């Protein structure tokens, strides 16, 4: 399917992908709004499938294996954490899942689509339609206020201004920043900026949200707040969240934790904390 699917309407696309993948599982196709109630069934729909993934960098004559044969599946509505020490290849993995870096070998199938086979143009449109991204250093556009920042990715889809603003307002309220809509990034604290970043990722109604050390620049109190917020919203909307962190404590809030050392997944653990705990 490749390119054709990427250019289609996002909603229709999601359904097609789901149908192809799990034609049998009628319940999950019906709609992700129900996912919270039927979490157990929903979990079984793989939205990301990684098979035998390698990433090799050449450094002079030496070959460095950033990823050395990785296989896993992530299911719809799941909150996954990828942890590992620095240099373990966890960021490389995330970049490849988001289509920012091509793999050396292996398959990445996201919603039925082989990411490794797409060209750059197709990758951009894939991210535009399906992926939300939360950065460690927020990466808000400094010349735009909170509202405009959230509305920005919607403009890439050619959405009209009034509709963009309406949606952006909705998501800023959702992250609790209704009083900061006209603030510029420089006028906000780190925690507030990251909330704007989360609202921006959510605004495009993505299937999957990638977060690269989203709390890396925040203090411990704000970190917990932001983490709670992310988990809460993603749960409510039935979206899949993939978070990279080096902090084992933070990772423990996830449903499943992938531990990576030297480019290999050494363990996959179930998260220990329930929703109530957050």
């Amino acid at each position: 399917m490749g390119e054709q699917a990427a250019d289609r309407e996002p909603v229709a696309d999601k359904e097609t992908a789901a149908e192809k993948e799990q034609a049998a599982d009628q319940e999950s196709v019906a709609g992700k709004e129900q996912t919270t109630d039927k979490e157990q069934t929903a979990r079984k729909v793989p939205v990301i499938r990684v098979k035998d993934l390698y990433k090799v960098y050449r450094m002079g004559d030496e070959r460095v294996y950033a990823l050395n044969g990785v296989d896993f599946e992530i299911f719809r509505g799941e909150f996954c954490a990828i942890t590992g020490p620095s240099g373990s290849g966890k960021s490389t993995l995330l970049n490849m899942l988001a289509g920012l870096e091509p793999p050396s070998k292996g398959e990445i199938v996201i919603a039925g689509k082989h990411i490794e086979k797409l060209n750059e143009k197709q990758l951009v449109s894939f991210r535009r339609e399906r992926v939300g991204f939360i950065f460690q250093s927020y990466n808000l556009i400094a010349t735009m206020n909170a509202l405009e920042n959230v509305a920005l990715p919607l403009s890439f889809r050619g959405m009209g201004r009034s509709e963009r603003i309406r949606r952006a307002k909705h998501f800023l309220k959702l992250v609790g920043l209704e009083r900061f809509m006209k603030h510029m990034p420089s006028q906000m604290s780190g925690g507030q900026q990251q909330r704007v970043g989360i609202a921006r990722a959510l605004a495009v109604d993505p299937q999957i949200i990638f977060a690269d050390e989203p709390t890396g620049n925040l203090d411990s109190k704000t970190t917990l707040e932001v983490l709670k917020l992310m988990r809460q919203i993603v749960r409510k909307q039935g979206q899949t969240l993939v978070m990279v962190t080096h902090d084992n404590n933070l990772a423990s809030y996830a449903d499943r934790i992938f531990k990576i050392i030297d480019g290999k997944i050494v363990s996959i653990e179930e998260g220990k904390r329930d929703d109530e705990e957050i």
Partner: protein
Amino acid sequence: MRFSDLLIMSVNNLRRRKLRTVLTVLGVVIGTASIVVMISLGIGLQEMTVAQYASSGSLTRIEIYNDAMWNSDAKEESFLEDTKIAQLERLPHVTAVSPILQVYVQMRQGAYSGSSEIMGVSREVLDEIKLGEGRLPDPNANTMELVVGNMVSRNFYNSKSGRGYWETGEMPDVDLYNRQFFMIFQSNGPSEEQTEKKYIFPVCGMVESKTDENGNPVYNEYSYGIYTDIELLKEQLKRIYRKNPIPGQPTNKKGKPYNYFIYSQAYVYVDDMENVVSVQKEITDMGYQAYSNMQWLEQAQEQLDMIQAVLGGIGAVSLFVAAIGIANTMMMSIYERTKEIGVLKVLGCALGDIRSMFLMEAGFIGFLGGVIGLCLSYAVSALVNRFLGAGLMGMGGAAGAGISRIPASLSVLAVVFAIMIGMLAGLFPALRAMKLSPLAAIRNE
């Protein structure tokens, strides 16, 4: 992305670095202004030259001379007469041919007398004369009606003192339009000098008399002539001289006049300026001496084109420097915004949109520079016309328009050109931005 969104983003990016944008725009302003002013000077020079040639005669007219009639050895076939005129009329692109019959006359009014030539011409020539007063001669009138040149009266002198305008500098008290004057035709032999007859012809019009800024009348090609319908002049001459030879007309070997009129000169009218030179060549090949203003204008045009190119080239250099400035500014901006471009790519901004965004930024610099540069050009042009133009006005002839002229087409072209230069300069940086890695967004500094 929608065009309006792209435009807003581009403009906002420019506003972010105001000083740098202003400086880059300034480069384009100077570049555009220098090109426009230079070209406007070229255009002014060209228009002035054309006007100058046009003021000394129509640009679609060829003058033919035939000196065979003065040559006693010349054969009869070489005379320029009515059948030859008809022959010339049949040439392609020729709209009309007017023979010209010249008769020398003496004139008297009160104490003043003077001389001039009566030119018998056809309607086409008469129609070209710009009249200051009166009307053109009526072709159906029963006597010759005259159009008198506005400077003919300068040739009158006081018959008592023998001094006229050329000696004293004072205009003689002669009014050829409102008061009657006598005309005396040349006699055809010294023996009959005492029997010269005086004629009075009605004056129906005066040649237009323009004045320059000092109030002096301006010369034009009809200023010193007296014009009338050629057919009526022929009739008049036949009545005056009967069977005798007419002064100025050749006679055969036995001293007898021919029974038709022979012309020394004729005007050939061509349908378009473009065809004048080719028709002129044909006429020269037929054995006539031919002159046209177009012939001189064409030579002048070649020189003017070269001047134009040199002037434009000087202006182009500064616009080229401005283009390098734009490219530099855009490059700087892209290096600064590497991370931001990466973020846009991660968020799903299409590659084409990123390219368009930067192209628009560069194009907008060009547009701003072009518009401001054009305004500056108008100001400079006005100054040039005011202080420099006055001195050149004497040679320009046509008053009113200055030496620097900016036609509307040049204005539009200048702005479009500035935008294009901007976008061209921004093309490489924009492609560079498009190819930047999205990974730049992920790296944390």
